[in-house]
């Protein structure tokens, strides 16, 4: 249980195909060369007395777009909360630049690592520009409330996310997709090399989901930021991620590039979903197509 690295062998996988379900890519040691800037070591995560994960070790490769996937209640968001220091692990530690994140000053962490939580609240009547400017908090002091640097970074963050023309609009009047871009702009204004996003596409329609993910991919590609996102949609994860982390029941089942990790066996093991994996006709990344089983005759006829 305490062995570092993938612990897929411990997962209660389907007993029909015990050995074939382990592709070779999953046994490679993750990031053996250098320590990544952000990593979780032997984490035990719990709310009150309900344990979500035990002995979980996860690396976030530098400059990767890491996506965490897994079934509902597998501990994806909990892991992200631990990595962002929002949740204190019961045991184990999160390392940021080689030091335990719990020992670092909160403002210093907030200058290195940004978080886009699921449960943010926009105060009544706040404008886009004002909300984005609150992302500058970790860079401000009592007597240095708004430097020219703050102003420049906020303008840049709004331009990067395409909300500059909405600057003076109240946030509560915006559409869901626009609002999510505003929150991302706020996280960008924090100017952190690492950015964690907790289900950034939830509650958005598919066009806005793609819009937000394209934005994330661009931030990763053009600005060299390390992104960690929790996503529900496995196909979106496979398309956008450079590094995929698959969890089940609080355990790491697989980690690696989507092209190597996403196989029919893995999807079956992680999601209990029989499926086929074919190349995405647009991008060539793995595309998961659920099998038309069980009620096959009825749906096949249609």
């Amino acid at each position, binding site marked *: 249980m305490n062995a570092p690295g993938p612990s897929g062998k411990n997962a209660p996988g389907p007993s029909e195909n015990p050995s074939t379900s382990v592709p070779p890519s999953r046994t490679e040691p993750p990031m053996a060369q250098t320590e990544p800037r952000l990593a979780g070591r032997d984490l035990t995560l719990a709310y009150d007395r309900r344990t979500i994960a035990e002995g979980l070790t996860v690396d976030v490769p530098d400059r990767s777009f890491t996506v965490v996937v897994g079934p509902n209640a597998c501990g994806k968001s909990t892991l992200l909360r631990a990595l962002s220091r929002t949740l204190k692990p019961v045991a184990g530690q999160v390392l940021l630049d080689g030091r335990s994140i719990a020992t670092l000053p909160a403002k*210093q962490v907030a200058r290195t690592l940004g*978080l886009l939580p699921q*449960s*943010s609240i926009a105060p009544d009547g706040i404008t886009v*520009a004002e909300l984005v400017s609150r992302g500058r908090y970790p860079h401000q002091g009592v007597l240095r409330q708004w430097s020219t640097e703050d102003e420049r970074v906020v303008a840049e963050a709004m331009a990067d996310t395409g909300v500059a023309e909405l600057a003076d609009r109240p946030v509560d009047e915006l559409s869901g997709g626009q609002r999510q871009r505003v929150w991302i702009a706020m996280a960008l204004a924090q100017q952190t090399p690492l950015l964690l996003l907790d289900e950034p596409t939830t509650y958005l329609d598919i066009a806005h989901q793609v819009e937000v993910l394209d934005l994330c991919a661009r931030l990763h590609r053009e600005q060299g930021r390390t992104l960690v996102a929790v996503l529900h949609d496995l196909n979106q994860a496979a398309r956008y991620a450079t590094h995929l982390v698959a969890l089940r029941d609080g355990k790491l089942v697989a980690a690696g590039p989507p092209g190597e990790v996403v196989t029919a066996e893995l999807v079956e093991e992680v999601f209990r979903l029989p499926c086929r994996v074919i190349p995405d006709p647009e991008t060539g990344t793995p595309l998961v197509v659920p099998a038309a089983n069980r009620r096959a005759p009825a749906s096949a006829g249609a």
Partner: protein
Amino acid sequence: MKTLRVARFSVRYRPRALAVCTGTLAVAAAVAVLALGRGDYPIAPGEVVRALLGNGGAAEDFVVNQLRLPRVVTALLVGAALALAGALFQTLVRNPLGSPDVLGFTQGAATGALLVVVAGGSSAALAGGAVAGGLVTGALIHALAWRGGVQGARLVLVGIGTAAILTGVNGYLLTRTQLMDAARAVLWLTGSLDGRGWEQARPLALALAVLVPLVLLACGPALRALELGDDAASGLGVHPERLRTVLLGAAVLLASLAAAAAGPVNFLALTAPQLARRITRSPGPNLAASMCTGAALLVTADFAAQHLFGERQLPVGVVTGVLGGGYLLWLLATQRRAGRL
């Protein structure tokens, strides 16, 4: 938003909020001058100002600076303290009903004061009892609402429950007092600035001098981050629980000291921040604007209570209830017509 920069230092402000602060302070100053002039020995506003600046005649100086000023200053300080406490509570529990009189802190202060009355203590002891009662109630509510952290809704519910119990306790305590004491206690319970001297104003002034910079400058930006939710605040480098505990403590202290000075002045802590919010039209805690509004509101209410009802002087708490409540209802009604709450 405008920015003022001097060398490496910079301050950010909203012109409208600044105008509101200036305007309400001007109103407060004007009413204060009027209040200092009215009474059995009327003094013209010009004379009042001269006396305040130390250039008045001996009689004016005595009446203005010795007799009437303590009451006016106490009104201004109590108004500012209650409004700041109310603005903090409302922001921290994310509920416009979060004010010390709804959450039970004021009732706790009253219990403390009544215990002193029953024991036959002096006025100074009564004020001390009020502060102790408020602080003990604050600690109790915080402990009862604690569940790995304090959540707004839970704090409001625990507070309302505590307020109900303490109201009952206070009623019981009133029946245990002598008739004379009971009359004094009831007057205190309605909130009154009658006969306030420097000894009431001084502790409050001291507390404001310490707590206002702490709350506005040191905790203000963090409080604005906390408004975005605990997770977002923690992502920005704020400790949500630590900040909440510090600010709740400051708010309870302010409310208790205000109650000690003037009794539980009704409704002001609830109204002033809501008024300030609507006049400044800006999101956020609006702490400074709330304080200025509260000071203006209470000094006006006290002036009205003293002089608008002929021979009968009303306790100021009655007037704040009517004045503040009425204005708030009017604002809500006009804003509902304009399509926003």
